[in-house]
């Protein structure tokens, strides 16, 4: 870690920890908790889109699988949150790989539509399998996590703390991964799959690895979301959510770990900030995206990369 970045990393971490203490307003903390949740999702999607270069338009499905895994484990078998966390991550990771098998056989935008298809299929399956998933009514009464004697309850502060820890750990792992041998292999596959193949990199395996890892992180986020909400319904995991997480990754700066986190915070806080404009909220939100892409096409923290000469 180059000291400069280490300093910045510590500064951000300190600020994030202090916030809930200096400003106890639960509403603000809830926004921060939601922002941290989106940051976690953005980090996961960043591995798939940023590292491996796979345009995934169905990420909400993996998030949903994590959430429903915990909900079902908890409601059917009374499994505790802490045990369910890795299981949800695992399930979503496996689903990411299984959904990926057919997807990696197609290229570019076709992959986008296949993943989009999966996003819709998973959501509709959760809506229709009523006896298991409670159908459109979703699942209710999901237990809040209990840490020793402390029950997380409805207040957002403990979730915020948990999410900050998860985001910090994931960000650190992603930063390490990006510079590692696997990170280089992913970027090679992203740039020229054939050349990477001739250098001994099994492109399909690398892609599946990225999908599995991205799925794992979505699963963790899903598990925390289900615990925080207490009630999950299929329509909160729709295509719009997948697109929003993608927008956070791209807006933050594709491939850049800090950029993706900032992108998530900005895009999840913006609707709340614009809440005063109520009816005009989404209108300004759309405008914000257009302007930001116009000002910084490569994203806030993206490296300004000139397009390869054709």
């Amino acid at each position, binding site marked *: 870690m180059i000291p400069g970045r280490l300093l910045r990393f510590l500064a951000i971490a300190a600020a994030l920890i202090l916030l809930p203490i200096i400003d106890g307003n639960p509403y603000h903390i809830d926004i921060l908790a939601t922002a941290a949740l989106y940051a976690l999702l953005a980090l996961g999607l960043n591995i798939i889109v940023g590292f491996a270069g796979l345009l995934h338009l169905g990420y909400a499905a993996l998030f949903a699988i994590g959430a429903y895994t915990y909900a079902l484990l908890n409601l059917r078998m009374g499994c505790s949150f802490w045990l369910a966390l890795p299981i949800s991550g695992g399930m979503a990771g496996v689903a990411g790989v299984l959904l990926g098998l057919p997807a990696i056989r197609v290229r570019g935008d076709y992959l986008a539509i296949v993943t989009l298809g999966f996003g819709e299929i998973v959501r509709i399956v959760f809506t229709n399998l009523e006896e298991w998933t409670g159908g459109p009514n979703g699942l209710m009464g999901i237990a809040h996590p209990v840490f020793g004697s402390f029950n997380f309850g409805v207040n957002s502060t403990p979730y915020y703390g948990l999410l900050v820890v998860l985001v910090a750990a994931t960000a650190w792992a992603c930063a390490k991964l990006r510079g590692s041998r696997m990170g*280089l292999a992913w970027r090679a596959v992203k740039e*020229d799959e054939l*050349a990477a193949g001739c*250098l001994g990199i099994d492109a399909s395996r690398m892609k599946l690895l990225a999908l599995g890892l991205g799925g794992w992180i979505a699963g963790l986020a899903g598990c925390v979301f289900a615990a925080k909400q207490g009630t999950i319904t299929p329509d909160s995991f729709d295509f719009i959510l997948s697109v929003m997480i993608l927008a956070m990754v791209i807006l933050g700066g594709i491939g850049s770990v800090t950029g993706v986190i900032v992108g998530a915070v900005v895009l999840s806080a913006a609707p709340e900030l614009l809440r005063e404009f109520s009816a005009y909220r989404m209108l300004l939100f759309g405008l914000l995206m257009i302007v930001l892409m116009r000002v910084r096409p490569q994203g806030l923290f993206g490296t300004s990369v000139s397009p390869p000469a054709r």
Partner: protein
Amino acid sequence: MSGTLLKIERLTKRFGGVVALNQVSFEVSVGQIASLIGPNGAGKTTLFNCVSGVLRPEEGRMQLLGTRCLDLGGLASHEVACVGIARTFQNIRLFGQMTVLENVLVGTHVRTHAGILEAIWPWERRTHQEDRWALDRAMRLLERLALGGVAGRPAQALSYGQQRRVELARALASDPELLLLDEPAAGLAFHERQELMDFLRELKQEGLTILLIEHDMKVVMPVSDWVVVLDYGAKIAEGTPKEIQEDAKVIEAYLGAKTNGV
């Protein structure tokens, strides 16, 4: 250290009706520089694509003898690279947006093993050693090819000659047994060609076997130990550089039919 390293038997490849390779057979001995020459469209690059697993031939066998006898037929391109065959491309395929050093480091992928967990929490001692080895090997190769100064720059920002050398360094980074070079001298200035020939001789000294595709006879003839000539997908001649230069069929294929007496 003699004997054949690469054995090609009756290799045939068709694209629809076009026969790109027609029953081609030849051998490359260990520690030798063999060249593959022939007019454009003779099937040279197609042969490279078959050997490196990018294309699957309809017929024929390709065997890598050397340390272990292996049939290359069914292998995918990444498996071919793992058994020690590295290649460069006719039109350069570098990872443009990655730095020169990163490009060469990707070459060492085959020789290192660190997975996802290792990358995040490198607890195995072997990983540290391998990382140091890879970085050291990459830097040495860059120095050898006079690319030390541009290690940190994105590959796409380099001159044509430099990019050729980066691709060469990247292929060598995987410490291969057999190196397939697809027109390495194309587009190089005169002095760069001399440096390339010297470098190839150095590699040969170090025991590396090279299979070369090249048009420039001034590069092929002085460097090669053995030359194979392809025309319209078929092998029309094979032999030492001297024999090939006098072979009637080769001249005819290159310069067209000898008109009477001219």
